[in-house]
């Protein structure tokens, strides 16, 4: 079944990218805290992520902003102040847009998701295959699992279901690693620390010889990532070692991305590590993994050095059908674009792709590969922000704690040019998580960004002259979202050129964040497209001649 629901939007030649921050207008004003203002410990500065999800299945993507705590000095003591995460319901279904104002409403209390722990990030899956999207929230302290009850509310069941991961978790991703039809869970973890260490931390490292800043992560004890296998009924058992995910485990892990880099039909895992080699776990097809990061060329920079990996995104940047990896890194070290040479080997293509130069100075977190102008290629968004507020004290450093985010536009061949002037954010903030979603369903992908100790940014895509588009909502026989489902879209533009693009439904990604699971395709001038859908368990569905400029729902045959 294919159902068209979207509004028609004509593409026009001469595109002008515009992203306007309308968080305040839309009522998205929660301040997401992360420790104290001085940032004396790493926990003060790793920030929080943002989750885009349609929690009530009304077709409009909602937003969950993970929150941490605020540390307030009280004499010699540091006091912890709890701040809850906030679930914003998109009111689009109530007639808010696309015709007019975008509006969100805080429904956290009613939904029962106002976690008051020290949150880090989040991701979505469907743990019990009931067709309702569940949310996993990582934290410093036990992680949370919010099971969607199907009535717009959630029940916290992490401990009961065996996934109340202790310690310091950063990012997560659900995936059907063993092909048994249910959603397993992978959680990255960072540093081992106690509250005493966090609250009593002193700044003992000199940054570029100028200012005293927090210590770490190198030299601090690492924490190990965890993999949980789903028993099919939504209960989990840790299976990190038996799945082979103990290889190269640890190393201050941050972002995680699920992708099928070798196109063998099995979901692989890429883990961005801070200051140590990144890891690529290739799925052998039987639910076990082998670590191939170093041998595949995605562990280090071209100079053979570990970078300060934070966030990660995957997608076909150059249109050859093979998915590249993009990793955000620490300041004074470019972000990485690893070009996929055919499923076995990658090369660090940061410099030739144009990614290296504009990303050398900033410190990156969230990242999105998305088609910002619907011209049928993937552009790049980077959420930036330093971890050391002290850099503002030394002008000679030429750095700032609050940093402008970056938008890089793909020229169609995998080379990027800086188009950040399109980001109308007003003042810069110290950004962390970022997720793409089309919150006004106008066919232009928008951005939600969590900012440290500040309100979020909600960048509405108001690009003038954007190309035509399709959004594909996949409903598989099994859990929803249909994690692992892949769509290849073929378009024929008026001049006769055939173009193929692929996307897949994935959990997690970016930095501790979750993009919307409806797949978005820019079609440039094409009036329609053919869809080749591969469902998670291998079935295939081809849909020809889908008209452009609409959301299509594709349901797997029973």
């Amino acid at each position, binding site marked *: 079944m294919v159902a068209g629901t979207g509004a028609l939007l004509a593409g026009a030649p001469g595109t002008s990218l515009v992203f306007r921050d309308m968080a305040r207008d839309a009522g998205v004003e929660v301040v997401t805290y992360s420790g104290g203002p001085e940032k004396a410990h790493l926990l003060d500065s790793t920030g929080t992520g943002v989750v885009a999800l349609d929690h009530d299945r009304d077709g409009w993507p909602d937003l969950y902003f993970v929150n941490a705590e605020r540390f307030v000095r009280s004499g010699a003591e540091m006091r912890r102040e709890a701040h809850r995460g906030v679930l914003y319901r998109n009111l689009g279904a109530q007639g808010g847009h696309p015709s007019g104002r975008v509006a969100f409403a805080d429904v956290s209390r009613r939904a029962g998701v106002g976690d008051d722990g020290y949150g880090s990030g989040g991701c979505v899956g469907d743990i019990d295959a009931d067709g309702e999207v569940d949310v996993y929230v990582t934290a410093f302290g036990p992680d949370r699992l919010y099971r969607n009850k199907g009535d717009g509310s959630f029940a916290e069941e992490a401990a009961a279901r065996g996934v109340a991961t202790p310690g310091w978790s950063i990012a997560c991703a659900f995936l059907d690693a063993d092909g048994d039809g249910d959603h397993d869970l992978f959680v990255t973890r960072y540093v081992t620390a106690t509250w005493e260490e966090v609250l009593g931390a*002193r*700044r*003992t*490292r*000199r940054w570029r*010889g100028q200012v*005293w800043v927090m*210590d770490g992560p*190198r*030299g601090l004890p690492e924490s190990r990532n965890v993999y949980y296998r789903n028993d099919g009924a939504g209960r989990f058992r840790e299976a990190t070692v038996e799945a082979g995910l103990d290889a190269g485990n640890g190393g201050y892990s941050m972002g995680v991305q699920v992708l099928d880099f070798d196109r063998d039909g099995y979901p692989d895992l890429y883990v961005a590590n801070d200051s140590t080699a990144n890891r690529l776990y290739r799925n052998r097809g039987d639910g076990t993994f082998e670590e191939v990061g*170093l*041998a595949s*060329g995605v562990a*280090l920079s*071209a*100079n*053979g*050095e570990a970078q300060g990996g934070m966030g990660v995104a995957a997608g076909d940047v150059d249109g050859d059908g093979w998915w590249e990896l993009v990793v955000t890194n620490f300041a004074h070290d*470019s972000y990485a674009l690893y070009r996929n*040479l055919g499923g*076995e*080997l990658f*090369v*660090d*293509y940061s*410099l*030739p792709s144009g990614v*290296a*130069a*504009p990303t*050398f*100075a900033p410190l990156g977190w969230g990242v999105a590969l998305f088609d910002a102008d619907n011209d049928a290629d993937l552009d790049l968004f980077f959420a930036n922000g330093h971890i050391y507020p002290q850099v503002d004290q030394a002008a*000679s450093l*030429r*750095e700032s704690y609050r940093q402008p985010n970056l938008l890089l536009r793909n020229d169609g061949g995998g080379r990027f040019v800086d188009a950040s002037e399109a980001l109308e954010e007003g003042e810069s903030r110290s950004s962390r998580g970022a997720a793409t979603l089309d919150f006004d369903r106008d066919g232009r992908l928008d951005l939600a960004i969590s900012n440290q100790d500040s309100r979020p940014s909600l960048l509405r895509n108001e690009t003038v002259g954007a190309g035509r588009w399709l959004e594909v909502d996949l409903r598989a026989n099994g859990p929803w979202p249909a994690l692992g489902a892949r769509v290849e879209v073929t378009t024929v533009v008026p001049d006769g050129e055939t173009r193929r693009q692929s996307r897949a439904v994935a959990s997690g990604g970016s930095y501790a964040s979750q993009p919307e699971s409806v797949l978005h395709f820019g079609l440039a001038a094409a009036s329609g497209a053919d869809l080749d859908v591969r469902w998670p368990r291998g079935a295939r569905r081809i849909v020809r001649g889908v008209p452009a400029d609409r959301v299509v729902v594709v349901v797997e045959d029973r």
Partner: protein
Amino acid sequence: MALHEGCGPSGGGAVLVSRAAAASIPSVVLVAVLATVTPGPPATAAQNLDLERRAAEAISALERDPVAVEPLLALLREAPRYLPLHRALVAAAERQGDWLRALRGWRQVEELAGPEPEDQVAIARVALAAGAHALARCQARAATAARTDDAAAWLLLARAEAAEDRYEAALEAVERVLVVGGPIPDALLLRGELLYRAMRIPEAMQAFAAALEHDSGAAERVASFALSGALVVAPQLSELRGRLESHAAAHSDSVNTRYALGVLAVREGRAEDARRWLEPLADRLDLPPVHYNLALAYRALGELDAAERTLSRFDELESDERERWEESNRVDRLRGQAAAARDSGAIQEAVSLWEQASSSGALTTEDLLAWGETLLGLGEAEQARLVLARALAATPADPRAMGLAEQAATTAGDERASQALLARAALVDPESWACGAR
């Protein structure tokens, strides 16, 4: 030709002599100069000729052996204002890398000869080497003001501004170098470096590319990230690559170039070329990045065993590197904890942490100064002197180091050391030179 006036201590008649002429020691002028500077009764022509001969011998001996200063010093006692002797002493000090002694020599020269732009360029160079950045800037500025088309002076001014983190001023100076001196490779490289330090990365890459266009040998002086960047933005990459390949082929020690060519080949999917550059390099340069890129080349060629072997070597080296890093990180942490303890008033704890850090590894000048200052505050003047002496050894012209060391010497009652440090401080103070005179 600029002339200056010299005047003998005995009140003899004024003699006009060019500085350049004095340096080349034409005997007719030399006689006149010696006649005016030799104390006591008027020298005879024979005496002057004898002095001239002995001066030439002493200078020649000093050129052969920069330590052989004694004959020259003896001559200076006879003719204390004889410029060539002073210049010879300066040259000897410079050859020995004794920058403070060289500066003292230059001070004598300036007193005798007055401020000459050419000398100011030389003084700026020495001051930069000594770490007396303010003095270097002062001298270079004066030289550029006097000779606006002197590329060497502008280049020194750029370096001096850069040493004080004044990148925009440094860039302005380097642009002047390029205007008056043309595409000098050193200036092009410095421009790239300055743009890089000013976080203007795309422009930095362009500048490095321009430097390579003019001199492929410059690749040996560029950091690998910058070199890779330059190779990306180079407008005529294939031509440049050809030149770099020729350069690498002609210079077996051009490791930077060979490595860059290897990495470029990996990135461009030319695995055979990558192997050609990196395989021989791996034998000579047992470094992780070389092995890593070579392993990627082997993988691309399908030589999986070789790739695995090479990655194993990479792992071994990385593991060693990690151990070294862990140790240095431990010392860094101690240093940081010491500074934090001092800032929070835990002085004894701070001193103890500095001692621990010092026994484990090298401390920076910054640490040594903080430690020394803390000891001074505790009244531990002798210990402070030891610590500050280490700071002075590392950065002999650092005004803070000299100030604290002088304070420690005074507290310890060492008047002589105190005076010497004050003199040293005055030596690197721009205001005590003609360039900074108010």
